[in-house]
């Protein structure tokens, strides 16, 4: 089931990361956040980056977005080398980062306002997106009137408004309770199906990674390296009860054992 490395599929490769390292200069010396990352992601693929805190997952996401430069190596998104902020992406963070002074709809519309897009068409799409995530009727609500799950859904709609071919998500459901999380995972997979995009999804939940992904990239900490890449061969659409399926459990077991091997978990004997 596992492959040693991302197999370069030149024809439909959406993202190719070659020999990328990132070093932060710190007071106590240099911090090697990422070391020699090689990874290829196909167009339309849902890839989870799984690893413990401090393995450089978020750093890798920032490098992909072009908001932070890499120290070494090359990142290509589409046929363009990433050298500055990449406009063809949507980003969702763990915090929803909604603007408190704007309603749900206005928050989503921010994306169109800044990009100077056709506001009328954008508005229509914004309303459509909000409806798709069950927020019809809450377009005019302010963030402080919404629950954590609703706020995060608005921030997902905002990330999708301009139909980005690539969606970057940094532990987007990490701050939500388990049931809200289940629902948002289902919502996200439906949005992915309807919008045809590549998703780069960071998580530290093994079952979340298996449930959502086509491939799971296992990273090891300090310095962050790609340890293993596991193909998740489960049918779509994924259903909640699939998590009880023996094949699902095989994947979570395999991943747990990889982390045990890395010394991420310390268990009492």
């Amino acid at each position, binding site marked *: 089931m596992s492959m040693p490395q991302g197999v370069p599929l030149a024809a439909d490769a959406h993202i190719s990361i070659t020999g990328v390292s990132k070093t932060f200069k710190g007071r106590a010396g240099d911090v090697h956040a990422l070391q020699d990352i090689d990874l290829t992601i196909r167009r339309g693929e849902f890839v989870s980056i799984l690893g413990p805190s401090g393995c450089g997952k978020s750093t890798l996401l920032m490098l992909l977005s072009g*908001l932070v430069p890499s120290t070494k190596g090359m990142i290509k998104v589409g046929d363009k080398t990433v050298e500055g902020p990449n406009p063809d992406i949507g980003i969702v963070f763990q915090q929803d980062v909604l603007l408190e002074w704007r309603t749900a709809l206005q928050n989503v519309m921010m994306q169109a306002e800044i990009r100077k897009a056709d506001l009328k068409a954008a508005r229509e799409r914004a309303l459509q997106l909000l409806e798709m995530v069950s927020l019809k009727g809450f377009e005019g609500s302010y963030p402080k009137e919404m629950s954590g799950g609703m706020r995060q859904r608005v921030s997902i709609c905002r990330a999708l408004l301009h139909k980005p071919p690539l969606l970057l998500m940094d532990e987007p459901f990490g701050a939500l309770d388990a049931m809200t999380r289940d629902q948002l995972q289902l919502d996200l997979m439906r949005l992915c199906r309807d919008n045809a995009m590549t998703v780069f999804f960071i998580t530290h939940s093994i079952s979340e990674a298996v449930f959502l992904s086509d491939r799971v990239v296992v990273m090891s900490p300090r310095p962050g390296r790609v340890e293993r890449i596991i193909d998740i061969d489960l049918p779509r659409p994924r259903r909640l009860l699939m998590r009880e399926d023996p094949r699902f459990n095989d994947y979570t077991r395999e991943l747990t054992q990889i982390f045990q091997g890395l010394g991420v978990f310390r268990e009492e004997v």
Partner: protein
Amino acid sequence: MAVVESTPARPVISETRRSRWSPLRMLRSVSPAVWTLIALVIFWEVSVRLTHVAEFILPTPSRIIEEIGAYWPRLMVNSGYTIGEIVLGFVFSVIVAVPLAVLITYSRAADRAIYPLIVTSQTIPKVAIAPLMVAWFGYGATPKIVIVVLLSFFPIVINSVVGLRASSAEMLYLARSMGATPWQTFWKFRLPQALPNMFAGFKLATVMAVIGAIVAEFVGSDVGLGYVIQVAGSSFNITRQFAAIVVISVIGMVLFMLMEWAERLIVPWKNSSNIAGEA
């Protein structure tokens, strides 16, 4: 598809307000603090009358109100001067302090070269500078406005800087990923984010501005409520002093309430905010 988390409480406009008027409901709608105030004033009135305290030591509230009525025209003229100094000084403070806060937020050099000086300068008691201002600028309106600025400037700078820095790293990343220009980032993200803090600063500044104007008038003036208090004191007219104190307190309260009203109008999404750097 079911929404899992519970539906949040959407603001519901109370229907009870529209029901018929009744005196009891009217009384209930008044803040308890108002009742406490009324009780204190009555206690003052009664105890002064019972103990026959001399008026030049402590006048009764009713005598103070009488005095306000009798001296009304002069109080009004002098209030005009004081209000003018407060408002001009405050406006000038905002005009200087807000751009300075923006500079400190955006320029690392300004942050390191100017900001620490502004903060440490707060240990200088500005009241002590007042006589110096009179020596430099004479007895006109200028020294008063300068002192008002000196007092009200600080809370505006500090709170604006705190507010402008409140934009999270994620928010700024988000703005950049949308391709926002620095100009758009400032107007659409940073400034609205800073407004609740800035208003906290403005409110504190109005209070400081009133203090500044009165102190400046104590030191050297021939007009204004501070001057009225000074002159009445030198002739042991305690009742007139109280009259002027009541008027200046009302002015302070009205200015503060005006700022609160402006805040509700401009920052409707926030009903409370943190106040930093109380001077």
